[in-house]
């Protein structure tokens, strides 16, 4: 399936070879191997507990790998860290933290600002721009616990945008957000794609996969299939990923048909 020896692999935004991650002797994902084409919108789908978040975290060296290699634009993650933007799960942080939305977005620049140096007005301006790009500039001074779920997610997205990275890794940016936010996020993802940026997005709603993404990775502890949505996002592959939950598959084939019509 994966072809790590081809020459495209060396410049691929994200290539993963033979990745195995284990918590307490129990492997969570194993033998994961894929690389993704530059400038694509990649959806990662799979059932709960399939190791989707683990995959992203292991790719960024946030959790130790049992084996395997990750290359980001042909180098290690460490060397190319500045080219990667990360949107963690919204539930992962304490939203009762005493900071406002602008502060959170500015955190995306901390790596660039460097140790011990203060945040400067130019950094705040960049953060404001990112906030207006996600459409919540007027909420910049609001304490983050007073933001709605969708607004919190937009704040996280803005924090990644301000990093001005080439590869974005997003952990469920569409989880429990309002429709307007979902639309805004999709638009931003498409803009980024037009700018030649690559996004890898963990996604839950199978129905929207064909609309949102052009490349998909089906994951259930190992990679079931990966490739362009049109080739890979098939009922058979989904059956292998999710097991025989047929109602789900019907929905998907409907969604695929809708997509074909619209193309």
């Amino acid at each position, binding site marked *: 399936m994966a072809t790590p020896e081809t020459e495209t692999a060396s410049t691929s935004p994200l290539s993963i070879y033979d990745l195995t991650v284990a918590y307490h002797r129990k492997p969570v994902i194993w033998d994961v191997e894929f690389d993704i084409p530059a400038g694509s919108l990649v959806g990662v789908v799979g059932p709960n507990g399939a190791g989707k978040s683990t995959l992203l975290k292991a790719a960024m060296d946030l959790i130790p790998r049992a084996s395997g290699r990750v290359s980001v634009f042909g180098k290690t993650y460490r060397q190319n*860290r500045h080219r990667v933007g990360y949107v963690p799960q919204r539930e992962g942080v304490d939203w009762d933290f*005493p900071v406002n939305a602008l502060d959170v977005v500015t955190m*995306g620049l901390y790596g660039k600002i460097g140790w011990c140096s203060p945040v400067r007005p130019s950094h705040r301006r960049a953060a404001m721009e990112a906030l207006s790009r996600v459409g919540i500039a007027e909420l910049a001074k609001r304490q983050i616990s007073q933001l709605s779920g969708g607004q919190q997610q937009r704040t996280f997205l803005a924090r990644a945008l301000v990093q001005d990275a080439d590869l974005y890794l997003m952990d469920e940016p569409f989880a429990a957000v309002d429709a307007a936010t979902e639309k805004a996020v999709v638009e931003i993802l498409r803009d980024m794609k037009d700018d030649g940026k690559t996004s890898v997005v963990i996604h839950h709603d199978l129905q929207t996969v064909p609309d949102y993404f052009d490349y998909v990775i089906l994951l259930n502890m190992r990679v079931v299939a990966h490739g362009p949505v049109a080739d890979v996002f098939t009922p058979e592959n989904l059956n292998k990923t999710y097991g025989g939950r047929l109602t789900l598959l019907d929905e998907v084939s409907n969604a695929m048909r809708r997509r074909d019509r619209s193309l």
Partner: protein
Amino acid sequence: MIVWPLICRFLLLLKWAGCTIVGCGFALAESGLAAASSGLQAADSGLFNAGQLPVVLKILPLAQSESITDRRISLPSWEQWQRVLLMQDYNTRVVILGTAMLGCAAGVVGCFTLLRKRALMGDALSHATLPGIALAFMTANAMGWQERSLPWLLLGATASGLVGVAAILAIRRLTHLKEDTALGIVLSVFFGCGIAMMGVIQQMQTGHAAGLESFILGKTASMGASDAKLIAAAALIATVVCVLLFKELKLLCFDEGFAGSQGFNVLSLDLVLMATVVLISIVGLQAVGLILMIALLIVPAAAARFWTEKMWEMLLIAAVLGLISGIVGAVASALFPRLPSGAMIVLTCAAFFIISMVFGTGSGVLVRTVRRLRLNRKVVRRHLLRAVFEALESQPNKTTPKGETKPKRTVSFNQILPMRSWSKPQLQRAAELAAREELITQVGEKLRFTRRGRLEAERLTREHRLWELYLITHADIAPSRVDREADRIEHVLEPDVVAELEEMLINTRQLVPESPHLIQANPSSANQNVADAGSGDAGSGDIDREASP
């Protein structure tokens, strides 16, 4: 009578128990005072060189002439107040400066540990210092060094404190036990170990061990100028580290995963934070004591959180609260040399905490209560307006004597009462509130909208019904999107969905759509019909939702 002797015995038992409790209380009080006076004794016995002579002894000549058996706590005289408050003695000045800096730094460091949710780590750490202090004392004694050399004792404290923290991390890493269990085990075992060693020291007949107790409860009285300078220096270092690494530590506390992805080494940052906690706890031992050190780390930070939603403000407020607590503690300790200064500092902190908890402008109890009451009032107002609106809507037009039909403009209490689970007084109160806002006028038991009230009620009822309609027609996705508190439904839903809902509104040919509670879907039809089973005038309004694009 058989019962009588039993009662007698019971009474005897009670008396005995009472005596025991009271006795225990006395014993405790005595031991506390004994510890305090033995501290004085130690100071008295000339262990310190002239420059380090305890402050109290210099300011309060009275203390020197006191016998050990004299356990009164005497009120300080006016001159003593004056001397301490005006900081006329060099030593007083230095000690107050030391504890003030300590409180300030503990406030700052405490904010980060609180937000990192590691507040109790500091407690385990300070308790774990006791065996180190005892061991340092013993070795110094055995080697014939100056036993009470503070740097040496603090070195021992640091070493065993770090061993304690390492033990917690090891238990958490190597076993399936959780952090709270590990903290509990290490804290109590190390402290018990230390207490046992203190017992051994008491038996060693060196005669100079008594001052060690001041590490447990804190005693600025046994603090010399050079000790205070050491505290001030350590506090300054910790504060400077926290200020320099403000943004890195903030990121660590808020989102460690993102910090890691940005290339910040989470482990090193945690170690730096832990190091500042160690530094502060160790130098604070003498002033606050190891049992109460944690209070200085947690309480000012927790109190500061009630006042603000900005991190640097929280740091500043915590620093100021800690600073004042330190000063008050040192002053109290100078005026009442027998009271442990740790307790004084902690009680000051606690006073600030209680005030902050109640009156804090950010999230204090008072502010929150007012907010909740305001919300309740808003909900009640909304209910009243809708109830009146719906009552008006459902009642038949009245016919004037001239034969014209006119919509009725008033509703009586009896009409609205059954619409909700409110009592008559509650309804009356709601009506009064609405009248005060000029939304409703009340004549006897009749309610009538003002012009503004009518518009407001129309808007509320429309929004309410659109939301309900949305919940029914989009039940699969609605729960995550319904936001009743939003100013307008359009701010939350897409325009086409609102338009679709509006379509139903237009179809019902009235300003406000019928309440959609009684919706019957016709399974034989592909379209979903919203049959209006309500009253009268809008009965023809079948809603065809597929009609919208």
